[in-house]
């Protein structure tokens, strides 16, 4: 997992969710994506799942708990993408 992938994911989050006024530097790598951190909601989670599928060929696990852990922070997400990407 590389710093480039972390920045790429931050860009993907901003692009996909069309977060205006949010810069790559505003997203903390270890902060939670949902609720108290970046404040994403359940629809954002669905959109992000679709974007990860399109960009990296990822298919989220049917186990909700695993998905919850992968979406815990940008760092968790980057680990997951690095390990499971098919493109």
């Amino acid at each position, binding site marked *: 997992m590389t710093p480039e992938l972390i920045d790429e994911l931050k860009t993907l989050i901003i692009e996909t969710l*069309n977060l205006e006024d949010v810069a790559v530097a505003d997203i903390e790598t270890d902060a939670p994506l949902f609720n108290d951190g970046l404040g994403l909601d359940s629809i954002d989670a669905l959109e992000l799942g679709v974007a990860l599928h399109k960009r990296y060929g990822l298919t989220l696990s049917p*186990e909700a708990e695993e998905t919850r852990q992968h979406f815990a922070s940008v760092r968790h997400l980057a680990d997951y993408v690095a390990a499971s990407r098919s493109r």
Partner: protein
Amino acid sequence: MANPLIPPPLLSAPAEAAAFYRNAIPVSYAAFRADLLAARRALMRLNAPEIVLFDPDTYAFAVWLIACWLNGQTALLAADDLPATRAFLPQPWVGRSPHSALPDWSGCADGTLAEADAFSVPAPQFDRPGIVAFTSGSSGAPTRFFKAAALLLREGATLQEGFGSHLPSDTCFVGTVPHQHMFGLPFRLMWPLCAGFPIISEQFRYPEELGRLSADPHVLISSPATLKRLAQLDTFSSPATFIEVFSAGSPLHDSVAADCAIRLGEPRIIEIYGSTEAGNVMHRVAPNGAWREQPGVALALDEQGCLKLRSPLLPDDGWFQTQDTAVNDANGWRLTGRIDRVAKIEGRRVALDAIEAALLALPEIAEARTAPLSRERDEIVAAVVLSEAGREQLQALGKTRFDRWLRQRLSTSVEPLALPRRWRYLSALPYNAMGKLTAAAIVELFERHALPPFAVTSRSAREVVFAARLRDCIRAFDGHFPQLPILAGVIQVDWALRLAQRYFPVEGHFSDLRQLRFQRILRPDDEVTLTLRFLPEKNEVRFSYASAQGIHSQGNASFAHPAVASDTAS
């Protein structure tokens, strides 16, 4: 005579038959009956005519609900377990939530009694079995709405008659919608409970979760919010056989329905229109089917073009007025929107007045107006005028962190989907010449600022190249100038800065602009490329706009930490 408060399978199903699945493990009717008895005793000890029921687990919710009815008690259905909801509902809370007086019934479990006792224990003095739902009224304050248990059970039986007669007896019900809302309650719970179909206790939040279902036949209770995303997952697979899929809450587009039909193995996809008060009103088979009224339902329009209806599922025979606008033409009924200040966000009713009241309760906010906006998704946007304290806080935090801080302050009283996602801080709200504040004027504030559809054509860690047709960003030319539309330099710089912060890990805020040159004007017919080059050692971004005619404009933007940066909050 059969007790009308007991779904028939609770009396007739074999003890070992599966009533629910929790984490794929069956819960038998014998266990269900024993838990009902324990829950009845636990609820009797509370000795309250009304309880607040909130439990994310559908099985636990069902046990509490039926036990409460058998005791003659009324269950107030909390939509969420936010602190503000707790404050609004002071009655004792039951089920798994931080506010619960009774998180489970284990203290009253007793193996010594026969399971039939769950139904023979007499009801205490209470005699109002049913639920109270809270709908987002136009005033912003939630409106209390009582529905008798017998009516909900009748609704379950009606759904079975209308949609269930051909389902195999081992059909499982699975849902992506919560069971306590007024679509989930009849479809995910009452129907299978009354007809004896096993129910999957967890709410599935991602479409991918459907991949862990068994090969059994299934009925899926879902919403356009989930189906829209499922339609885009081209590798989706599930061992389940989907026989029927139900969608409600907001319009299900025919193209989404067609893609979902392919992904799910050609089930019958049925879109439902209904309401908390009137239950299921009409349905259509998607894609392309026309709306059909439920048996016994009569529809008409009032003078404002809003739908009104009579239904056997209403407590009386009078006309029930909705706030939904509709037309009735050669193709039948078509829903066209709403007339009140209740917005639909991905299928959920959201009262704009309630969000504004929560905003105005903050000392940082002097005036506030919210509106729904539908672009890539439905969302709430907020235009606010800050108080002196609010302006100081905005100065201190910068816009991005202040936006987030406001969302956090609201999150104890506003559910996540209704939290504003975009903010404008204004010196005055945009009242028109008539003194009116229109939703269009609020939406306008957000559209003007939208980034045009730049497509990335090449990309590396140091350089990104975008292409755009300026014709697609025509709003950027508004008022500049009516006879000779040209793209203002300030807009060109704004786009470049915002994209730079989106694509490169620049540090701090924009601080300085140098070597700025505007060489050729940009017109609406131009097709441009924008090149951004990142110089991390200087924390600078170089931008240039070019077309077939050559370079149009270029410059160097540098960024610095807030201590030395100029204030860029808008």
